[in-house]
């Protein structure tokens, strides 16, 4: 059967079970949009307001649904507007398939209208990319794109399709590709597992650091079972925040620059560090040559190039985490580590003391952590929180009590301000749970146009703006490390309530503490999109904090 390349693309997406596409049409992808017109009953298309919105929405969708997110854009500016989101997905291991239109192959390299070298631009920030110049290639390449995006360590794939390849006809035959190279996983041999288990069983002060890999490999249950059986404390990274929770008695909090006091300090006391699906990022390790120097490090990761990249590993394990945890469990012995666990509790008390002091200082004020705590209480921790970047992100990660697995999304590696609002669109489409976008006044204005998408799609997303009229995290650094020289961090903001009204979105602004609980309840109860702007204490800092370049045990409490 002869069909156009554009139709073959849509059929190939259906074969990959794609249900939703985030996109923005334009000249060089019009044939694809024309083909999509006839498949509207099978594939949902979300029209965003800017291509960056499409790619972040696709990321939000991918992270909640655990399937590749798909976006469509045109050539030139359409494609270049994706760049931030693609880089974000690369850093945070998010599976994406981005389809970009391109000028006809006869015009390539001639500086034609809306031509850019998309392959050249996206090579350093994709797991794989490919330019299709004739229709015949489409079924195979699309299958390959999905395979690569989701297999092993996930990542973004860009497929650039020239206009002629969209228009030309081909004999369509469905194709499913597999790539031998990516199929290679290590077989965990019995004696190796025993050897690793022996190290774990004999350790006196072990600490698990659980990362995004726990969620990617669906290993939340296995992680909890493992830690409870072995009686080993679990600390989480920013992306690992919703991989376990306080219901597990061995949960000891978050590590990293704005993590909790106990797990950061005790990292340097541990005699064994189990890095599960994490990559020893500099925000986690602080000063590298003073990181976990007393510990043997067992690093389980599916990406071999992460082993020994930042920290010297005693035992690198190349494996899917779930597979590893399942297989090692029979060899793990329960061991009494009461004194070690007690240490975490003692240090936690110190952190709480400082926290109390802060609460007292701001007794009559609204602070961001208080807002998140209240939101957590009132939603019983059972919502998806999509945080932006900066202070709001750290407050969301630390003070929301996540009860659902995989319910915290944020831009970690790249730290992309403006991530939250569009990503919450994708998250809402992928999930029936309530979705809260937690965002600062700065980040909100970076992708504010996506309120239009929320309006058009009638998505009941709750947008919580923590407005401190500053670029809060930068201001905090200026306060602490630049003698309070607030160089260009003050924001004169527009009336967000009127803006929301312009998009026909319900909205409310509060600046008195006594209104907080009442208004939060209304906000949570609403079945429609809702913007709640909370004026929070401006010069309020996130603590604890490991100043850049310091060791994890040099963490500051105030």
């Amino acid at each position, binding site marked *: 059967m002869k069909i156009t390349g554009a139709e073959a693309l849509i059929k190939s997406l259906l074969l990959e079970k794609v249900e939703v596409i985030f996109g923005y049409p334009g000249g060089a992808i019009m044939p694809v949009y024309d083909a999509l017109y006839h498949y509207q009953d099978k594939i949902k298309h979300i029209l965003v307001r800017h291509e960056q919105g499409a790619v972040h929405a696709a990321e939000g969708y991918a992270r909640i649904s655990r399937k590749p997110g798909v976006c469509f854009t045109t050539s030139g500016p359409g494609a270049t507007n994706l760049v931030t989101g693609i880089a974000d997905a690369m850093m945070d291991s998010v599976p994406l398939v981005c389809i970009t239109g391109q000028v006809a192959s006869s015009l390539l390299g001639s500086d034609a209208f809306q031509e850019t070298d998309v392959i050249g631009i996206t090579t*350093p920030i994709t797991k794989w990319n490919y330019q299709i110049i004739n229709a015949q290639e489409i079924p195979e390449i699309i299958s390959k794109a999905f395979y690569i995006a989701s297999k092993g360590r996930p990542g973004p794939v860009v497929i650039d399709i020239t206009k002629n390849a969209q228009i030309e006809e081909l004999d369509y035959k469905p194709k499913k590709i597999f790539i031998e190279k990516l199929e290679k996983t290590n077989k965990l041999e019995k004696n190796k597992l025993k050897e690793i288990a022996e190290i774990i069983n004999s350790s006196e002060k072990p600490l698990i650091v659980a990362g995004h890999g726990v969620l990617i490999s669906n290993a939340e249950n296995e992680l909890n079972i493992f830690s409870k059986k072995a009686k080993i404390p679990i600390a989480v990274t920013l992306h690992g925040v919703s991989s376990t929770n306080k219901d597990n008695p061995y949960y000891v909090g978050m590590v990293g620059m704005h993590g909790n006091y106990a797990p950061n300090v005790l990292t340097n006391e541990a005699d064994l560090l189990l890095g599960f699906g994490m990559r020893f990022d500099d925000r986690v390790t602080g000063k590298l040559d003073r990181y976990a120097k007393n510990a043997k490090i067992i690093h389980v990761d599916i990406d071999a*190039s992460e082993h*020994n990249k930042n920290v010297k590993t005693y035992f690198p394990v190349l494996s899917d985490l779930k597979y590893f945890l399942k297989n090692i469990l029979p060899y793990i012995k329960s061991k009494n580590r009461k004194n070690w666990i007690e240490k975490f509790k003692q240090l936690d008390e110190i952190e709480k003391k400082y926290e109390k002091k802060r609460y007292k200082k701001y007794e009559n004020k609204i602070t961001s952590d208080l807002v998140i705590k209240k939101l957590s209480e009132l939603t019983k921790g059972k919502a998806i929180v999509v945080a932006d970047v900066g202070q709001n992100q750290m407050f969301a990660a630390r003070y929301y009590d996540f009860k659902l697995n995989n319910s915290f999304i944020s831009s970690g590696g790249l730290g992309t301000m403006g991530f939250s609002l569009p990503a919450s669109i994708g998250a809402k489409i992928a999930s029936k749970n309530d979705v809260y976008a937690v965002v600062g006044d700065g980040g909100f204005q970076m992708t504010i146009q996506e309120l239009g998408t929320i309006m058009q799609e009638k998505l009941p997303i709750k947008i919580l703006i923590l407005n401190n009229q500053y670029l809060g995290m930068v201001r905090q650094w200026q306060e602490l490390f630049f003698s309070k020289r607030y160089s260009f961090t003050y924001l004169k903001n527009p009336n967000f309530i009127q803006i929301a009204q312009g998009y026909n979105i319900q909205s409310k602004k509060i600046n008195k503490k006594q209104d907080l609980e009442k208004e939060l309840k209304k906000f949570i109860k609403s079945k429609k999109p809702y913007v709640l702007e909370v004026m929070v204490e401006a010069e309020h800092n996130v603590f604890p904090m490991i100043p850049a370049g310091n060791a994890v045990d040099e963490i500051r409490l105030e």
Partner: protein
Amino acid sequence: MKYQINIIAENQQIVVYRIINLFLKKKIFIEKIEANFNEKENFSKILIIIKNLNQNMIETTIKQINKIIEIKKINYKKIL
């Protein structure tokens, strides 16, 4: 330290671009790079000589190059 890296890859122009990109990002100096396309057998042989790397860096770099989808085989040896 000087190293010679030998690569066998799919016959695609992009492969050299991807490798050079990685070296550029990591500020690794390439002393020599040579790519031979083999039409008949449909693969390319790429030879690279780099210097000023320690053992840990070369190992990580090799693993990162090996993540390039089109690469079939890679090995390296110390030459000086």
